């Protein structure tokens, strides 16, 4: 069953057609890969899904059978669609624990004015939530750094925290924007293993944008390929790998068949 569906999704910035009529559906409990050369519109696609950008007229996005086209970002988040950012966008001055607590925000049981009038109840709720979030930090291996500011974490730890903050939202679907960017190959493998464990543990559907094709081929059930804002191919990793349109988009027409095979298998 499709959890996320886009129909005729388009977005133009002035004269540039960043996303061009993309229709795509993501099945529940699957890992869906989104690949494409630099500037092909992958990040824009995520920004449209999560309400950071508003799509052009005629576009349609539905999530969990709810129409989320043109809905504000916080509403989409509260429906259970979480994401990470390519540049992480952590709350640098807040502690690691506070970062995941902000992620939990859509599930806060008290209103914004409650701290002024029912302090005891607010503190009780916060204590419970903090315990839950410490469990999460324990699971992703950041518990001992809970009190330090996020800005002081190492690069790899920051990537984990970005993931933890999204998981704290208890989402149904998680959009990962280049989770492995800047990590060494070994660390990327570890990160993907963590992501797959999290998927099982929290019953997630995952859409992942990634440049390291080896990782995408190994973990995804379905892959969609974007080029110049258009969906040029879609299917199983095996199908996409051998689709001439994909090979052309990535490597250009001139490269010899042998070279292409070698590059794709590297």
């Amino acid at each position, binding site marked *: 069953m499709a959890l996320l569906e886009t129909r005729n999704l388009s977005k133009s910035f002035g004269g540039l057609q960043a996303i061009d009529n993309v229709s795509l559906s993501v099945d529940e409990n699957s890992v869906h890969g989104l690949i494409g050369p630099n500037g092909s519109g992958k990040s824009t696609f995520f920004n449209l899904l999560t309400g950071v950008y508003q799509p052009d007229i005629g576009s349609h996005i539905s999530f969990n059978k709810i129409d989320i086209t043109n809905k504000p970002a*916080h509403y989409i988040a509260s429906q259970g669609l979480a994401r990470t*950012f390519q540049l992480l966008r952590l709350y640098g001055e807040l502690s690691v624990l506070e970062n995941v607590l902000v*992620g939990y925000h859509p599930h806060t049981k008290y209103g914004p004015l409650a701290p002024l009038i029912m302090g005891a109840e607010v503190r009780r709720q916060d204590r419970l939530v903090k315990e839950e979030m410490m469990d999460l930090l324990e699971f992703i291996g950041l518990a001992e750094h809970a009190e330090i500011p996020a800005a002081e974490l190492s690069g790899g730890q920051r990537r984990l925290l970005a993931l933890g903050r999204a998981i704290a939202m208890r989402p149904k679907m998680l959009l990962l924007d280049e989770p492995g960017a800047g990590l060494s190959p070994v660390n990327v493998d570890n990160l993907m293993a963590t992501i797959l464990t999290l998927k099982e543990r929290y019953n997630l559907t995952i859409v992942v944008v990634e440049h390291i094709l080896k990782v995408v081929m190994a973990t995804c059930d379905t892959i969609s390929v974007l080029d110049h804002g258009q969906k040029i191919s879609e299917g199983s990793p095996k199908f996409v790998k051998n689709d001439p349109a994909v090979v052309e988009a990535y490597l250009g027409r001139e490269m010899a068949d042998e070279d292409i095979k070698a590059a794709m298998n590297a």
Partner: protein
Amino acid sequence: MIVLSKLADLFEDLAKRHRLLPWLIAYVLLLPLPFVLAGLFNEYLIDLVNRICLFILLAVGLNIVKGFCGQVTVGHIGLYAIGAVTSAVLSLEPGGFGGALGFGWPVWLSIPTAVLVTAFAGLIIGLPSVRLQGAYLALATLGLGESVRIFIAVTPALGSSTGLMMIPAPSVGSFTLDSFTSYYYIVMTAALLGIYFSFSILRSATGRAFQAIREDTTAAAVNGINVIQYKLLAFVFSAVYAGLAGALFAHMQPGYLHHNNFTVIEMVTLLLMVVLGGIGNVWGGVIGAIVVAIAYDQTKDLVFYFMDRPIVIQPLVFGLSMVLLVMFMPRGIGGWIEDFQRNRRFIRRSEERLSGSTRNT
């Protein structure tokens, strides 16, 4: 530093017994202050302390919108003016001096009404924040704040150039709170409650939402925070503080308000308090308010003669210290406090780890 460390230890130990204990002790310790000041120095200092308490309210309120939520507002003094003038006009007797409006309400009713009116005004001053950021937001709020002052200055019903006079002091039964000492208990209680509630906000999901907006607005929205709602809420919270400070200022002796109390210079003074205190740090803001209010009071009459012409140097001193602060101490006193707390926590954790490992071996 050692004194500060001991003080922090004491505060934490007390808070462990009961959360409100340190606050109650602070309150009890502050109770005899006017008598100590009057005995050792003079009555004037009590008046200064009262004004410091109002500045603390203003600075702590400004810290919520600017420090927690990261919205640069320069219209805070306009909110202070709205609180002051509203409460004054509501409580004045009808047909007062110089064509000023008057409704003759009891003071205990006019103050909360003024706070509500100011909260609503805060919502309006906050509206530009939905679309503007940084320096543009500062300009928009500056315009709104200053237009409040000019409106007061040209409207006879609100005092215009002569100001509002004979604003009544609050009274309890037949006892009128018109002395420095009696008024001290009102403003001190208000300031302490203001600090307490500021912490309540900071340490809740509401405070975390404010800080998330400050750190990264896009990420905050994607994390499910209704950015517009929370930004406006921060403005309303800070307006409540400003409105209360303004209303309490109006009814403080000598019960006189003039639009010169609400100029851009006052706003700069207020910003200086928050910047010196460290943006976003509640105690820093309180210390900043105390230090700057005393400095303001001491340099008020400082006149420098150049070729026999008097030059008031206070604005120069304040402007210059603002520039120096931003350049050399951008995190203010609060930055020191935070570093100090972090080091203490680090030392304590290391000690625990060390003692733990010796026990294991």
